[in-house]
């Protein structure tokens, strides 16, 4: 698939707007529990998710709001989820952006334990291969997640099976407060991936075109039986890890450098260079604003879950369950 830049812009703008709306709710005391920040990661989650076909699946992590949106999860459900409402994705059961799974949209809900999404995506891909289906699984992890044993175990399984899975590493150079040089003796994640037998490429994670190009190539290769790929996307989280994080640990100079490379600004510049009319961009901004305002209102006005529901739906239905 060719990347339609305006489509990409719309999803990235929506991602940013939803993220801003969430932060705004929290900063004004309307939040419930904690919430993660997404700013800076929009090109990765959107660019990658746009490469999938309808019956592919994605197993995101905590900076992939854009992937949920692109896959069709509505801002209403996502915001209601974050506010713990009955109308949210998890009906008030899971917090923050955890547990936003919906298999009808091809989204596997994630657990906080990082990087548990990886082996699950690999297993999904193994299932596709087992049944001979031309489907692909996409998943994400951070630089911190890339130094876990589960990362190498997952890559090895994927490579052994030539599983149709694409693993995007969002290298924002920090795991929470810990810089990559302090958590990874070898910060070259692509090299570590190749050593496990998985092809890997390094790309600019703030350039949605680069993200899309690399992930689309990987998705196509996976679908054609070429096996797994790791795409290492360099970026920077531009706000704290989560709403409560003072964020004093990233040097200002570094942030400034990345501020100039804001993924939305970069894309706007591209659009301008491609002589897209400013009006079309602003129309998207306006539409997104309306969507997000509506979603915030919907979430805020949504009912809390019924406490009597707390023990319902522990077990999956099937013989002997209701």
């Amino acid at each position, binding site marked *: 698939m060719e990347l339609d830049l305006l489509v990409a812009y719309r999803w990235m703008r929506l991602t940013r707007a939803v993220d801003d709306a969430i932060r705004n709710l929290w900063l004004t005391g309307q939040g419930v529990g904690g919430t993660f920040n997404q700013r800076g990661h929009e090109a990765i989650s959107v660019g990658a998710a746009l490469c999938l076909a309808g019956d592919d699946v994605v197993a995101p992590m905590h900076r992939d709001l854009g992937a949920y949106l692109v896959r069709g999860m509505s801002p209403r459900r996502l915001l209601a989820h974050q506010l713990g409402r009955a109308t949210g994705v*998890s009906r008030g059961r899971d917090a923050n952006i955890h*547990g936003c*799974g919906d*298999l009808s949209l091809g989204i596997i809900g994630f657990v*906080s*334990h990082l990087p548990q999404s*990886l082996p699950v995506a690999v297993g999904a891909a193994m*299932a596709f291969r087992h049944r001979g289906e031309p489907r692909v699984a996409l998943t994400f992890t951070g630089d911190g997640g890339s130094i876990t044993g589960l990362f190498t175990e997952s890559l090895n399984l994927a490579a052994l099976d030539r599983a149709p899975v694409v693993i995007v590493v969002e290298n924002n150079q920090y795991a929470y407060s810990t810089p990559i040089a302090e958590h990874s003796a070898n910060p070259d994640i692509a090299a570590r991936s190749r050593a496990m037998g998985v092809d890997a490429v390094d790309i600019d994670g703030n350039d949605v075109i680069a993200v899309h190009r690399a992930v689309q190539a990987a998705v196509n290769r996976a679908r054609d039986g070429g096996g797994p790929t790791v795409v290492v996307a360099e970026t920077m989280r531009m706000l704290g890890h989560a709403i409560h994080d003072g964020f004093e640990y990233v040097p200002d100079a570094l942030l400034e450098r990345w501020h100039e490379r804001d993924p939305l600004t970069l894309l706007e510049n591209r659009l301008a260079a491609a002589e897209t009319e400013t009006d079309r961009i602003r129309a998207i901004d306006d539409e997104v604003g309306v969507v997000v305002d509506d979603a915030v209102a919907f979430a805020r006005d949504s009912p809390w879950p019924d406490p009597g529901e707390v023990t319902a739906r522990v077990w999956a239905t*099937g013989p*002997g369950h209701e």
Partner: protein
Amino acid sequence: MSDGTYLDAISAALLHEMDRDDRVLVMGEDVAGPFGGAFKVTKPVAERFGESRVRNMPMTELGFIGAANGMALMGLRPVIEVQFADFISTGFDSIVQFAATAHYRWGGAVPWVLRAPADGNLRSGPFHSQNPEAWFVHTPGLKVVAPSTLADAYGLLLSAIRDDNPVVYFESKPLYRALKGSVPGGDAPVPIGVAEIARPGSHCTVVTYGAMRHEATTAAAHLATEGIDVEVVDLRTLKPLDLETVTASVRKTSRVLVVHAANRLAGIGAEIAATVADVCFTDLDAPVKRLGGLDVPVPFSPPLEDAYRPSAATIADSCRELCAW
């Protein structure tokens, strides 16, 4: 039906379900043919179904149980073998954090079975004798079964594979080849969540499961010669617990002993004893007693392991005390 062992019954159940449902596949370390697993449970399975449905995994329990989660979400029905139940702790996160919670949180069904060869009395020491079922009963979202007969080994595995939830299936290594009988066949599922009266009796109740069922019935046979009539309840499923069968028995006998090979301290026996002591408070003529493993790693040397573990003899002693109360 043909003659065979407890182990054969497990193999037979796998063969039956894999014939019946091509979503079922087996995965684990060394399970593929011709080797067929450390205990050879999957040998006939690998012979019949080959490598695509009986798949060797690297020694990476966390990763491959994680992969089983993904397969199960995509509609397959993986039957995972960990080489010994002891190694279940290596894959812990993929079980207790992901598989156990997905359905409650967002409706993702994870229909796998994890086969865990458990229990001791084989002089295998601290790392090949563990009974870790309490960890999983305490964890919301899992089902846990522990068959003790050929019929249950077969029938509970059928039900576990057909269940839409993650089921941890504890196999009893001491019964693998020691317990013989006719190997079931055909469509003979044993429902999850239903205990069995292994031996009816009127003077006291022994609630147990796994290899201890046989210690208990041996004790009961012996006690019968002394005029003590013991009812033995085999739980069969540890989660969800069939408390009705247990409390009905206790109401009949008014005396109860709970027995398992796992560490007694904070084991499942504590849950059963606490529940019985509560809901049968006015029915009890004696305190609810418990027997279980000592609070030490399972020791290797025969005199130590024998001291560690309940047996027909210590069960009989406890029943005598209980009935004399």
